[in-house]
């Protein structure tokens, strides 16, 4: 029996030795040559870091409090595998992950134990057929070429493909990702005329959000939750919309309601904890994060920030010893330099609140010993919190501003800034600080671009380069700095320092977002230099 499995690269994750051996044997019988078999998530992560797989077969129950769903959430959110990699979840029981089936991160298929090799084969065959049919769409999605995604989906829809509804789903997402709210709304309306499918209803709510129609979006989401209480994305989206509209308590209630249905993803627990801290519900925050960390004890979905958040909830309840224990625990699992900065900053806050100024100052000095340029938003926020705690408000605000300007499009920016300022009783200033920081960097960017357009390259380059060095993750700034430098040299000739800087910005942009349309503009200018 030779199937489409032949020649495919397959990763099998199964904690039980007996099943592992049997599956290995069965897969070999159906013609698998490139089969890698591992027993846990850690080894699976190592495998996907070094090899590319066409298919991942993962047992749901991986023992020691870890499961296949956590692994799937982790690798999909971090885009560690291509959309062209198939993911099949093997489960002993269909009913308990019925909840998971409507969660945000769904596998391509579930395989219910027991199964025969022929059943596995047919199912995989089917998925590979689907994957081949959707290959162009998936490849375009991996490259974030949304226009291409949309046109490829349109072809499948027009051809009445067996996968037309998959194409409709992907098309809607691509329209939303490329900011075409009105078109997305029309698209989802058309799908809903055919059938009231939950994903299309949630999509419609997202389209309404994209068009700025927040009230109707919230009303629709409430309807979805009432009629189909297991559509977890509806809760997550509604909570975000409410939090963005400063209705933090309502947002918290929605996520609480979601928790009754499904324990949920780590992402949801984080949002819930952040909201609870911002609102001063520290006991709730402590409980939610404690439960989440226990449930994910051995899983890579944990993050050093989760421990910092738990510690914050404890500090706010004046439980400094417990908070210090949490930091100590976190230090065992997270030893990289960013994590150290965050944990030092967290310690500073704990000591300061406990009245130990000396230890607080020492911890803050350790946290700020390294270069702060371009540190991730979460790390920056924890240092800002420490600065606020020791009374260095101006330093804290300038660090917050820099972090906002570095990653102005971070989805949870509002909640994060709110949580930091909220702990210091300045929660109501978050919106204003975010808005003014964004405004300032947009103005700076526009001024730089205007100067370059007017041929004032010297001034444009000075302005944009300084900003790009300060904000290495703001791709708009970095891209425009590279472009201004390239145009400058096209006009006035090559200068080695300018060329070096130009290439540095260009490569940084390419590394962070290889599909940025500005890259082509920069490269065509650089090309002209060679002639």
């Amino acid at each position, binding site marked *: 029996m030779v199937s489409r499995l032949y020649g495919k690269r397959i990763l099998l994750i199964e904690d039980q030795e007996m099943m592992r051996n*049997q599956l290995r044997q069965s897969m070999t019988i159906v013609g698998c040559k490139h089969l890698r078999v591992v027993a846990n998530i850690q080894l699976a992560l190592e495998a996907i870091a070094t090899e590319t797989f066409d298919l991942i077969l993962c047992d749901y129950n991986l023992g020691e409090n870890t499961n296949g769903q956590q692994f799937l959430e982790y690798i999909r959110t971090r885009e560690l595998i291509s959309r062209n990699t198939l993911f099949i979840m093997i489960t002993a029981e269909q009913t308990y992950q*019925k909840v998971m089936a409507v969660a945000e991160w769904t596998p391509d298929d579930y395989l219910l134990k027991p199964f*025969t090799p022929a*059943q596995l084969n047919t199912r995989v065959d*089917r998925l590979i057929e689907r994957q081949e049919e959707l290959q162009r769409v998936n490849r375009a999605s991996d490259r974030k070429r949304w226009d291409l995604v949309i046109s490829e989906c349109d072809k499948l829809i027009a051809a009445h493909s067996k996968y037309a*509804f998959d194409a409709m789903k992907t098309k809607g997402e691509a329209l939303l990702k490329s900011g075409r709210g009105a078109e997305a709304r029309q698209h989802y309306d058309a799908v809903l005329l055919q*059938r*009231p*499918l939950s994903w299309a209803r949630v999509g419609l709510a997202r389209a309404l959000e994209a068009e700025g129609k927040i009230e109707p979006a919230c009303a629709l989401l409430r309807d979805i939750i009432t009629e189909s209480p297991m559509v977890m994305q509806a809760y997550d989206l509604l909570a975000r919309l409410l939090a963005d509209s400063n209705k933090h308590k309502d947002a918290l209630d929605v996520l609480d309601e979601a928790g009754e249905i499904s324990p949920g993803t780590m992402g949801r627990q984080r949002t819930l904890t952040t909201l609870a801290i911002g609102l001063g519900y520290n006991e709730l925050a402590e409980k939610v994060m404690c439960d989440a960390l226990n449930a994910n004890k051995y899983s890579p979905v944990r993050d050093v920030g989760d421990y910092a958040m738990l510690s914050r909830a404890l500090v706010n309840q004046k439980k400094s010893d417990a908070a210090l224990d949490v930091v100590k625990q976190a230090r065992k699992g997270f030893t990289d330099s960013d994590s150290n900065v965050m944990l030092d900053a967290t310690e500073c806050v704990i000591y300061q609140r406990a009245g130990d100024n000396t230890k607080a100052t020492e911890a803050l000095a350790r946290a700020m010993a390294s270069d702060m340029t371009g540190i991730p938003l979460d790390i920056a926020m924890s240092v800002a919190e420490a600065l606020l705690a020791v009374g260095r408000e101006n330093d804290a605000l300038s660090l917050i501003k820099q972090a906002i300007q570095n990653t102005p499009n971070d989805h949870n920016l509002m909640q994060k800034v709110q949580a930091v300022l909220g702990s210091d009783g300045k929660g109501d200033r978050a919106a204003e600080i975010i808005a003014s920081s964004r405004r300032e960097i947009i103005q700076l960017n526009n001024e730089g671009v205007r100067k370059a357009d007017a041929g004032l390259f010297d001034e444009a380059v000075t302005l944009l380069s300084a900003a790009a060095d300060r904000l290495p993750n703001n791709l708009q700034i970095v891209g425009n700095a590279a472009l201004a430098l390239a145009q400058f040299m096209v006009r006035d000739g090559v200068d080695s320092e300018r060329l070096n800087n130009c290439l540095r910005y260009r490569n940084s942009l390419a590394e962070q977002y290889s599909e940025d349309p500005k890259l082509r503009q920069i490269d065509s200018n650089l090309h002209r230099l060679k002639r």
Partner: protein
Amino acid sequence: MNEHGSIMVSDFPLLSSAILHEVKNHLAALQLRLAARGDASNEQALVANCAQRLTDLLLAQRVASGMLLADVDAHSPADLLQDLATGYVELFPALDIEVNLDQDPNTAFYDVFLLRMALGNALHNACHHARKQVQLSVHSSNEGTVFQITDDGPGFPSDFLAQGAAAPSNPGQTGTGLGLYLAGRIAALHRLGAHAGRVELANAKAGGGIFRLIVP
């Protein structure tokens, strides 16, 4: 557990789920081991039946607690029937299991996991009673999508035909009764406006049972 360390009635959902998980793992390893031998289809069918009964038990529990909900999406009914047939061709090699796709609609709307269970139950039943032949087919009607499984066995007993897919009169009864009841419940979870899915049983004039599951 209570303070004396005894097991309480409230521990049972967790306990049964843990045991079920363990047993299914063993059944899964056994299934693959039997398949590797190539001469043990009867034993494989037995394993499949044991697993199905365990799944039925869990489903019944979810139905009783009102926690069974359908996650409806667009799927290819032809794929579903072919997947089901593949499994049973292996388990019942003496039977002619045919998938008739003369009138299959491109797309239908259902919860694929639930339908796989409901139709799997019915198919197992049909294979068990068939003499030589089992046929699976799907077509559209004004009521929705009709999945049909026919066999050339003795047909359904008359009390089944009368009772249909209502609640099993005796909760202790074996295979068919509970399976049909669950299939009926699964069908009914599929709703479109005022219409709900349903299960229909009949006997063919020439003999043999006809199982139909209709989703709107």
